[in-house]
């Protein structure tokens, strides 16, 4: 694993640029500690390559350049926003498991399912997580909003097994797509299941109203992934929610590690908060499942 010093050297194409220390998490560098970036939100989609292994290999190359230690990978790489039920979900989960198997020290898998196919989804949970290698649920995205009653058995299973759910949601100006969740749907589900830990994948995209919306529902977390790196996002999230409820993710391959890590590194917040957001919080949430499976935390 690269440390920050190595990363800095890797970007020293000129002495002047090296002196500017473009990539230096100052607090960690000063203390000599290694910053461990874990990315909660990544996909194989939009990544060049013909197989899951080839796509994952490119992701690992970019992870090394950016100092990302580990990914939570989900959804495979179909571009279909409305996957053909059952077979397509199963295929995408298989693709993720192949990619993780090829790079077991760099990624964990997260199971793709939908409340629109409740019985199938419960079977897939058992196949991929209870009996398989996956450690998280989501990004749940397709076909139905997350406040539907069919989501309850999935949420109950997650709460009972201390498993985190990554839930796609947006709060688009002009309205969401049919079946697309909003932060308000996430809150509704979270309030029905107070022991559930659930992450808003995009914190609305429109993060100012979304942060306000989730503020009082303490089992809901703000995910940073998959939106433009607009200044102020992380500062507001930390101010209103506390750093413990803010979680870095990138949404690669449609986004880059660069633009999404920049939200944290560019934010005017304490270094200790950056460490929580870039990995500490996720490791804390995943610890029960990782320990049960005998994985490294």
């Amino acid at each position: 694993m690269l440390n920050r010093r190595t990363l800095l050297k890797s970007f020293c194409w000129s002495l002047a640029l090296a002196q500017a220390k473009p990539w230096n998490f100052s607090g960690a560098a000063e203390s000599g500690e290694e910053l461990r970036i874990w990315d909660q939100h990544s996909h194989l989609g939009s990544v060049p390559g013909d197989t899951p292994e080839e796509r994952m290999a490119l992701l690992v190359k970019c992870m090394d350049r950016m100092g990302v230690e580990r990914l939570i990978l989900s959804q495979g790489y179909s571009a279909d926003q409305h996957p053909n039920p059952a077979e397509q979900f199963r295929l995408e989960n298989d693709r993720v498991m192949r990619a993780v198997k090829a790079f077991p020290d760099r990624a964990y898998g997260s199971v793709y399912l939908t409340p629109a196919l409740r019985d199938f989804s419960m079977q897939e949970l058992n196949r991929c997580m209870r009996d398989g290698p996956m450690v998280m649920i989501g990004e749940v995205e397709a076909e139905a909003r997350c406040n539907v009653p069919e989501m309850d058995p999935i949420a109950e299973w997650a709460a009972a097994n201390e498993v985190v759910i990554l839930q796609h949601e947006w709060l688009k100006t002009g309205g969401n797509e049919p079946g697309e969740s909003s932060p308000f749907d996430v809150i509704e589900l979270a309030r029905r299941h107070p022991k559930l830990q659930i992450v808003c994948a995009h914190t609305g995209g429109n993060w100012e109203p979304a942060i306000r919306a989730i503020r009082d529902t303490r089992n809901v977390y703000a995910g940073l992934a998959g939106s433009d790196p607009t200044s102020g996002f992380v500062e507001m999230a930390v101010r209103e929610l506390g750093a413990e409820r803010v979680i870095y993710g990138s949404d690669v391959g449609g986004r880059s590690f660069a633009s999404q890590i920049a939200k944290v590194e560019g934010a005017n917040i304490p270094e200790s908060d950056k460490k929580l957001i870039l990995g500490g919080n996720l490791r804390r949430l995943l610890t029960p499942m990782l320990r049960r499976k005998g994985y490294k935390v």
Partner: protein
Amino acid sequence: MIIDTNVYLSRWPFRHLEGDEPAKLVAKLRKRNVVEAWAGSFDGMLHRDLASVNIRLAQDCRTYGQGILVPFGSVNPKLPDWREDVRRCQEEHKMPGIRLHPNYHGYSLDDPLFAELLKLATARRLIVQLALCMEDVRTQPALMRVPAVDITPLAEVVKTTPDLRLELLNCTSNISVEQYRAALAAADVSAEISMVDGIAGLARLVQEIPLQRVLFGSYYPFFYFESALFKMQESGLDEASQKAICEDNARRLMGPAANATL
């Protein structure tokens, strides 16, 4: 060393930005080793007294710039006597270029006024920066939704203006690669990287368009500055390519004559 071709001064109308005080902005840029930053004004989007916008921009660049801020004035060809704004930008404020916001000023790129503006700017040896969007349409305030500029007519328009130097800012992914490629092939058109995203997006961009036309742009302070910087790192480009994007290509676009006046 970095030449950042896309920063803004003044206030974003809908949000406080950490770097919207010019002294803070310059401190941040210097910390990140920016030696020159081409600065427009957020006021240029919505204000109608653009002459005063440009006066303030030039003053702020002089007062706070510490030699690195280079003003690019705003021009709106839909305003009466806009040609006088072009003249003042060049003759009075000694600006090397102008920055346009067609989607906020209500004209399309096949409007004859746009073609005339390009010709006038070129005759005065001004660089033209064309901002294609200012914010993801999905996150804009509901009362002010502004779609990205439609660049379909651009390739034809730029062909009619020999010696034009044009830079596209905020190259949103809502516009297709084919459209960008057509525009860049038609004349001396460049593009900056602030809105280029996707895994190793920059490395993939330089496979799509000539490296010599790609410039560093952060869109700071609307975006976190580090976004553009880290894209260089994620790209895995060799040192010569990184230097071309961060410095050499901007110097070529600016040209020796204009450099000498700064």
